[in-house]
């Protein structure tokens, strides 16, 4: 492990990786990357590389888990053993179990669950490389996978974190800032409904700092939302062109 740098952000407000306080990492999104899935997406967010795949709506297995009045969304967030510095055991950790749950719960408000009773949608998220903020990048990709599978949605769900490093509130923490910073506030958001569907926080913030971090994360979400929509359009523009030929 490297020695802790003295400062995570310099006097000019430039962070260790050269970004300004309210600047996102480079982001790349691609839709329809897995042939066998009903819907899929790939995200590169900084050094995060994550695949998401959606299957369904389809019959539930095992059948007794299906519900008579609504669709069931199941989600598994999983990290590849080689995705982090020290090999991670492929068995699901408590962190992965919790993240699977919060990712599922942040996507449910976007779905019309009661329109598809007795069916299930399975969502699989695989983190191939982690660089801080994997839950947010996973959500951004997972929402695209659902949309790509043709599951009707109220809006896309997009996620981004803000946090505090040294004494400054900054957007989109990467690995080192996440570990050495003082607070991290991941948020998932549906822009058209002004709805926060995931909110977690660890670290210590005053109420004012918390408000600032939340608003900064929401602004970040809005920027990623545009890239997300563009990625979805890109796939289907190609499909449209092909069908016209």
């Amino acid at each position, binding site marked *: 492990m490297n020695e802790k740098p003295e400062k995570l952000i310099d006097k000019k407000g430039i962070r260790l990786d050269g970004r300004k306080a309210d600047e996102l990492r480079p982001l790349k999104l691609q839709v329809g990357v897995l042939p066998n899935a009903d819907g899929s997406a790939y995200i590169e967010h900084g050094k995060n590389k994550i695949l998401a795949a959606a299957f369904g709506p389809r019959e539930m297995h095992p059948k007794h888990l299906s519900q008579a009045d609504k669709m069931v969304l199941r989600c598994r967030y999983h990290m590849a053993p080689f995705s982090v510095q020290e090999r991670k055991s492929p068995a699901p950790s*408590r*962190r992965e179990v919790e993240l699977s*749950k919060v990712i599922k*719960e942040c996507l449910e408000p976007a779905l019309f669950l009661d329109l598809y009773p007795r069916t299930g949608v399975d969502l699989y998220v695989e983190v191939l490389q982690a660089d801080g903020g994997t839950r947010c990048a996973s959500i951004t990709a997972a929402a695209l996978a659902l949309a790509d599978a043709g599951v009707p949605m109220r809006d896309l769900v997009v996620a981004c974190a803000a946090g505090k490093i040294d004494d400054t509130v900054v957007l989109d923490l990467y690995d080192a800032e996440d570990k050495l910073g003082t607070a991290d*506030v991941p948020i998932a958001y549906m822009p058209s409904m002004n709805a926060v569907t995931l909110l977690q*926080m660890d670290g210590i913030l005053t*109420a004012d700092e918390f408000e600032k971090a939340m608003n900064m994360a929401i602004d970040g979400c809005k920027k990623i939302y545009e890239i997300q929509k563009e990625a979805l359009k890109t796939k289907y523009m190609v499909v449209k062109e092909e069908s016209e030929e």
Partner: protein
Amino acid sequence: MSSLVTRVKLKQIEQLIEKGKRLDQRGLHDYRPIKIEQGLIERAEGSARALLGKTDVLCGVKVETGEPFPDTPNDGVMTVNAELVPLASPNFEPGPPNEDSVELARVVDRGIRESHAIDTEKLCIEPGKKVFVVFVDVYVLNHDGNLIDASALAAMSALVNTKMPNYEIKDGELKMKQGYTSLPLKSHPITVTMGKIANTLIVDPWAEEEQVMDSRISMAINEDNNICAVQKGGSGYFTPQQILEASKIAQEKSAELRKKLNW
């Protein structure tokens, strides 16, 4: 999954809340009666039981020695585990921890860890080799809603109650001495959970409200009124305004609870 009875009651609960009332006569921001007992398990280094109305959570703390994590060689270790014991509810089943108990454990853990409640540096015996490991085990005995707040109260009360064995190092060997000292604590976070029903925030949702609410938000607040951990749960959403409202309520309620607790 909500039972049929609560589905029928949903309308009633919603209409009452729109008028600022609740089924069990409480105000929207009132806690149920809180009762805390400490030191009821003699075998444990610390223990406490928190009653939140009929919700009943027992927490035991065991202190043992072990190795520190490689990236924090000078710090003791704390782990939180939560058991949704099958005797606590007809809906709890025996077996390995499910996602609900994992989330409960991790939310309680985050409140204690992120507020730096335990002075882990003082739990170091020999840097990089030997430290005290604090096991916080949350045991739900009766589930009547808001397990998060009840568990956080039980856990923090048990840590306040914890006595560590005195020790000395002789020839590189750890030797226990007579007597005990209290676990070194730096902060005492209080977690406040709110549910959203009929687009209104209510504090300390009990079982029937939990079954009809669309989402919840929990915030851990320390002595300085700062926010140290947040968790949104459930399949609904909050607007940013509601989240800021929740943080104000959490600050007020935690200050109010703090006065009543003899930590």
